[in-house]
Every structure is written in structure tokens, then in C-alpha cells.
């Protein structure tokens, strides 16, 4: 089988940048920055970029090319080339499951962007401004109310859009690395830039809100960029900044290592890696940082934390309100969602390539056979996420356990392989083969000592923050206010007191005394989930908001539990395939005399 190659230097850079630039650049970054100190957030953000992001990118580029010239493109093969140990290929399995499972739900979000763009094109989304209208549209569209609702929405029109998006991805991947991915990215990336610049100019020239002159673009920029230095004292800010860099640059996805494996021995990896990273930063800081929040601010005023925390609410509820109110909103809404769709598809197509590469080199399959098998597996996963749409539980579960937990695990494995197995001396020598700029020596020491520790610290921080449930104190009042009516609902007086203190229990709720903890009551919603906790301590009644951890989330929801089991099933299936592929490689002697291959010696 003829080895695939990138067609040009700029082509691979655009493909890697396209893989990194996604919805997170335009929706997640602005929300994280505004919530975690505004301009002050940029300090830990850029430190993380320099210490964690760019060095890890270079390591992935270097390892990918190193194994690529020795005949391997898939992560199980790449890891085994670097670490000749039977365990290595199974560790490489993480670099297959991460992009595969992310693709399963990411393609769904991508189809939402396309559906929104189409609805703007037809004018269906130009509705009366108001959070309720667009929230309702989004909820109905994604099937938030009940499982399976998205399948029948508008006679299955949304499923058709999903199928078209899915098919488009597979057409690109079927055409191969150079003719499919590279050709598409060479058009898509400049187009995305033009669309983003058009929207940016429109946002920066917006007039203040006619009824609220203080809601101006300048004040919106102030909301986004004015520093709150006190936030730097909070570990959460540093955690959020590191996480944003990590997810944004696509390190630990298994994609860069695969893309770099299609380079030749003399192709540059250092300048290419830096260029693709800086392109991603351009879309994130220069465009995402100037568009999303100022636009939302002009039309809805101070952006509430519920919007900043949720990319979906910001992108699919807040911004349609903005377009509904602005001159030319239909056109700019269409351009915005078309841009998001392009950003998403350049990312999603990159998620398919690592598994395609594995099926081809692990089993000697032709492109059509490997694409068909991958299509079947990923369609099963996307169908699973599409069906279990209630409260987006399946999507959230996939996102957390794969896009947060497994990505960190994979990044730590890669840092270990580069720093401690390949070694920083050999790593530097390999990186500098054909390089047009040099990596400073201290970066190699950072990769060996600082990056693994930094990654571990962030990983522990994320687990500490997200896994356990916790009750957050909202306010205290006199315990004599504690009262419920005969239906076990909060008394009218207590309910009014809670609402006056910005605590909003669900309309349909019950108050249940905790049998294990005397003096504690749990406010539960219609689904039986705890939303708030009331604790009597002496003469005080403490009102706390209950934040369910991921572990409680799995145990409390059948859909979440099934989602985790689905991920485990995919992982086991992939490990089985890797085991079989490993036996084939061994029988073929693929790992013998790797350094004697003509390409390596050239």
C-alpha cells in the first residue's frame, strides 16, 4: 500500500490548526476568561501556553514523525516504535478511543451549527428577542425534554442534517490525507477567517442598545478584558486557564501524533508546530475574545454566569438573541453559524483519521473497508448520543470521561514517552531534523520534569473539582424560617426568602428530611435530584446549593451509567483489535530493524 503524504508544508499546518480551532475558541474561551478574572485570566493562560501547550505540541509532532518514517501512522504503532514494550500498543489505544468517542458527539453539535445556519438562511430563526424563545428552540431541537425527542423533531429533519454532516465527514476522510483533509482545510481555514473577520467588524461597529445606552461594545470589551487581579489568588482560575489551553490546542487527542506521522524525515516540525499553535491562538484570543462577549453584552447586558459556564447557552441561546436584535441579523447569524460549522468540521474530520490509520495498518484494509467499519462504529455512538438526549446526559458524560479525563491520561502518557523513553537528547535531535527554527534547550527539561508534574497537578485538580458532590453555601437565615406545607413543599415565606437571596429552587419540588443526618433537608426536583440542601445548625438555617459530582451523576442516571458502559465497551473492542493487530505486526516483523528503513537513513 502506498504511503500517504501531505501535499505541502502549509497544508499540514492548516490541517493541524483546523483540528485545533473549533467551537471552544469562539464559545468556551470567552466564557472562561470573563468568569475567571477577565484580563487577569490571560496571565495564567499564556503561562500555560508556554509551559504546557507549545512544548507538548512539539513533543507530539516529533514523536509522530519519528514513528511515521519508520512505517507507523496509528498510535498503537507509534507508541510501540518509541517504547518497545508489549504494553505500549495498548496505551496507544487511548489515542484511538479519545478522537473516536469525541467524534460521536461532536458531529452532533456540528450538525446543530449547520441546522442553525440553514434556519438563518431561510429566516426561520429570526424570532422575537427574548431568552425563552431561543431556549425553547434549542431545547426542542436537541431533544432536551425526553430521550428520543430529537429523532422525531420536525419529521426527522434534524436527523437528515446530522446524516448529511456525517456523510460529508466521511467523504473527506475517504479521499485521504492530502486530497481530502488537506484540500478541504486549505479552503476552509481562509474562509473561516474571512467569515470571522466580517462578524468581528459588525460586532465592533454595533451601536449601543437603544433602550440601555450603557450596553455598548466598549463596556462589553470591559466586561471581557478588565482585569480582576484578586481572581489570580484562586486555584480555580489557574485550573481553568490550563484546561482551556489544553483543550484548545488539541494536545492529548491523538490527532497531532497521527498527522505528523505523514511527514517525511526532512520535513520541519518545530516551525510547523509553532505556526499551527499560534494560528489557534489567533482564532481564540484575537477573534473569539473580541466577538462573543461584547456582542452578547450589547444586547443582553451583564452576561450571567449560567451563560458563561455553558458554551451551548452562549452560542445557541444568547447569540441568536443578539442577531435577532441587530441590523442585518439574519445575514450575520447565518455567517456566524456557518463559521462555527466550518470550525467544527475541520476538527471532526481530524478525529476520524487516527482510527482509519489504525484499521489500515493494523489489518491491511483498503480505505473503503476501513471507512465503512469506522462509519458503522461512529454511527452507533452518534445514534446513542442522539437518542439519549434528555438533559444532554449522554453528551455530557461522553464529554467529561473522554474529553477531560482520558485526554489528561493520554497527555501524561505522551509526556512520559517523550521525556523518559525517547529521551530529551534524542527528542531534541529528532525535532531539529529539517527544522527551520530551534527549540531552546530548557524546553526539553520542561518536557521531562515540569510538564508531567504540571499535568498531574491539573488532573488532580479537575478530579477534586468535578468528581465529588459538594454543597455550596449561599446564605444563612434564622432556623425558625424552616417550614414546609402539607405537600412537603417549601412554605411560601421560606420560598420568598430564598428567591430574595438569588436561590431559585425548581417550581416542582419536594423537601425531604435526610434520615441519616438529623437537621438536614434536601430540596429535590421532579426527577428526584437534589438541588439544594437546608442545614439547621443551632439557631441558624444554612441554605446550600447542591452541585452533583460526576460520580453521583452516573449513579443517579441510567443514561449516564449506560454512557459510561458504552465507552467501556468501545474501549474493550478497540483493545481487542489492537491485540490482534499487535500479533500481526509481530508475525510480519514490523518492529525489526526499524532504523535500517530507507526513509530513516535518507
Amino acid at each position, binding site marked *: 500500500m502506498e504511503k500517504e503524504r501531505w501535499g505541502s*508544508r502549509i497544508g499540514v499546518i492548516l490541517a493541524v490548526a483546523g483540528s485545533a480551532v473549533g467551537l471552544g475558541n469562539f464559545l468556551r474561551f470567552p466564557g472562561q476568561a470573563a468568569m475567571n478574572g477577565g*484580563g487577569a485570566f490571560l496571565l495564567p493562560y499564556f503561562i500555560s501556553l508556554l509551559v504546557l501547550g507549545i512544548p507538548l505540541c512539539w513533543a507530539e509532532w516529533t514523536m509522530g514523525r519519528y514513528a511515521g518514517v519508520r512505517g507507523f501512522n496509528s498510535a498503537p504503532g507509534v507508541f510501540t516504535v518509541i517504547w518497545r514494550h508489549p504494553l505500549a500498543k495498548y496505551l496507544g489505544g487511548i489515542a484511538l478511543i479519545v478522537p473516536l468517542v469525541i467524534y460521536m458527539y461532536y458531529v452532533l453539535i456540528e450538525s446543530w451549527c449547520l441546522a442553525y445556519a440553514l434556519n438563518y438562511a431561510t429566516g426561520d430563526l429570526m424570532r422575537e428577542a427574548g431568552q425563552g424563545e431561543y431556549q425553547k428552540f434549542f431545547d426542542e431541537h436537541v431533544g432536551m425534554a425526553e430521550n428520543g425527542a430529537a429523532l422525531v423533531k420536525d419529521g426527522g429533519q434534524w436527523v437528515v442534517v446530522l446524516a448529511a454532516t456525517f456523510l460529508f465527514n466521511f467523504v473527506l476522510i475517504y479521499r485521504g490525507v492530502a486530497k481530502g483533509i488537506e484540500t478541504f482545510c486549505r479552503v476552509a481555514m481562509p474562509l473561516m477567517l474571512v467569515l470571522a473577520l466580517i462578524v468581528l467588524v459588525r460586532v465592533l461597529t454595533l451601536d449601543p442598545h437603544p433602550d440601555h445606552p450603557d450596553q455598548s461594545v466598549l*463596556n462589553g470589551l470591559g466586561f471581557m478584558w478588565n482585569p480582576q487581579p484578586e481572581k489570580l489568588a484562586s486555584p480555580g482560575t489557574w485550573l481553568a486557564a490550563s484546561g482551556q489551553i489544553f483543550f484548545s490546542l488539541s494536545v492529548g487527542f491523538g490527532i497531532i501524533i497521527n498527522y505528523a506521522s505523514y511527514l517525511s524525515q526532512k520535513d520541519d516540525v518545530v516551525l*510547523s508546530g*509553532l505556526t499551527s499553535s499560534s494560528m489557534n491562538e489567533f482564532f481564540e484570543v484575537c477573534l473569539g475574545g473580541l466577538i462573543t462577549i461584547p456582542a452578547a453584552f450589547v444586547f443582553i447586558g451583564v452576561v450571567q454566569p449560567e451563560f458563561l459556564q455553558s458554551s451551548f447557552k452562549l452560542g445557541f441561546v444568547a447569540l441568536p438573541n443578539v442577531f435577532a436584535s441587530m441590523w442585518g441579523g439574519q445575514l450575520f447569524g447565518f455567517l456566524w453559524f456557518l463559521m462555527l460549522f466550518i470550525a467544527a468540521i475541520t476538527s471532526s474530520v481530524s478525529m476520524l483519521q487516527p482510527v482509519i490509520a489504525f484499521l489500515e495498518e493494523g489489518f491491511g484494509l483498503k480505505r473503503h473497508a476501513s471507512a465503512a467499519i469506522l462509519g458503522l462504529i461512529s454511527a452507533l455512538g452518534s445514534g446513542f448520543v442522539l437518542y439519549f438526549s434528555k438533559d444532554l446526559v449522554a453528551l455530557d458524560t461522553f464529554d467529561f470521561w473522554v474529553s477531560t479525563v482520558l485526554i489528561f491520561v493520554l497527555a501524561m502518557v505522551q509526556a512520559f514517552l517523550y521525556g523518559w523513553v525517547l529521551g530529551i537528547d534524542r527528542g531534541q535531535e529528532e525535532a531539529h531534523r529539517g527544522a527551520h527554527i530551534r527549540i531552546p534547550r530548557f524546553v526539553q527539561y520542561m518536557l521531562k520534569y515540569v510538564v508531567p508534574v504540571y499535568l498531574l497537578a491539573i488532573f488532580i485538580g479537575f478530579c477534586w473539582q468535578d468528581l465529588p458532590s459538594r454543597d455550596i453555601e449561599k446564605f444563612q437565615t434564622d432556623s425558625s424560617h424552616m417550614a414546609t406545607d402539607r405537600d412537603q413543599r417549601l412554605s411560601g415565606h421560606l420560598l420568598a426568602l430564598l428567591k430574595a437571596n438569588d436561590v431559585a429552587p425548581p417550581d416542582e419540588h419536594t423537601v425531604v428530611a435526610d434520615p441519616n443526618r438529623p437537621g438536614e433537608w434536601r430540596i429535590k426536583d421532579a426527577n428526584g435530584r437534589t438541588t439544594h440542601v437546608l442545614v439547621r445548625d443551632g439557631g441558624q438555617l444554612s441554605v446550600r446549593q447542591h452541585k452533583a459530582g460526576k460520580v453521583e451523576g452516573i449513579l443517579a442516571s441510567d443514561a449516564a451509567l449506560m454512557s459510561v458502559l458504552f465507552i467501556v465497551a468501545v474501549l474493550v473492542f478497540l483493545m481487542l483489535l489492537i491485540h490482534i493487530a499487535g500479533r500481526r505486526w509481530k508475525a510480519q516483523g514490523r518492529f525489526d530493524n526499524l532504523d535500517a528503513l530507507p526513509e530513516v537513513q535518507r
Partner: protein
Amino acid sequence: MNWLWNSIAQAIPAAALLAQSPPKQPADYALTPLGWTIMIVSVGCVLSLVIYCLVRVLSLPPIEDEHLKGPLEIDTGDTEDAD
């Protein structure tokens, strides 16, 4: 003064509302000189980096030309046996 408000809030539950700082209004977010500086420096640094990288990449010769060797670089392999 916070201690005073907190004491009153503990004594009179209804005063808890007053103890909280009032929510910020859009007018409170006017872009400050420090905000301007951070925005310009951040955007400027990223823009400079991406322009530098792109200029470097785009000014390189095509890969196929880069890998061609000139006559003086070609190692014919016969120098060791010259004697």
C-alpha cells in the same frame, strides 16, 4: 463596614439582602486603561507571533526544492576509496 452589615444581617434576616453588594450594572464595566492595555498587548502578541510564523513558513522554498541537493552536497561515496 462589612462587619457591621454582617452583624445586622445576622440579627435581622431581612437585612441579609442589604449585606450583599449590589449587582454590577453595565455602566460599571467601562473599559479601563488596564483593560485596554491587556487587550492590546494580548491581541498584539498573538498577532505578531502568527504573522512571524506565517512569514517564515511562506517564505521557505517548496519542499521538493528544499530536498534537492546541489552538486557540492552530493556524496558520491567514492572519496574513501580514492587512494
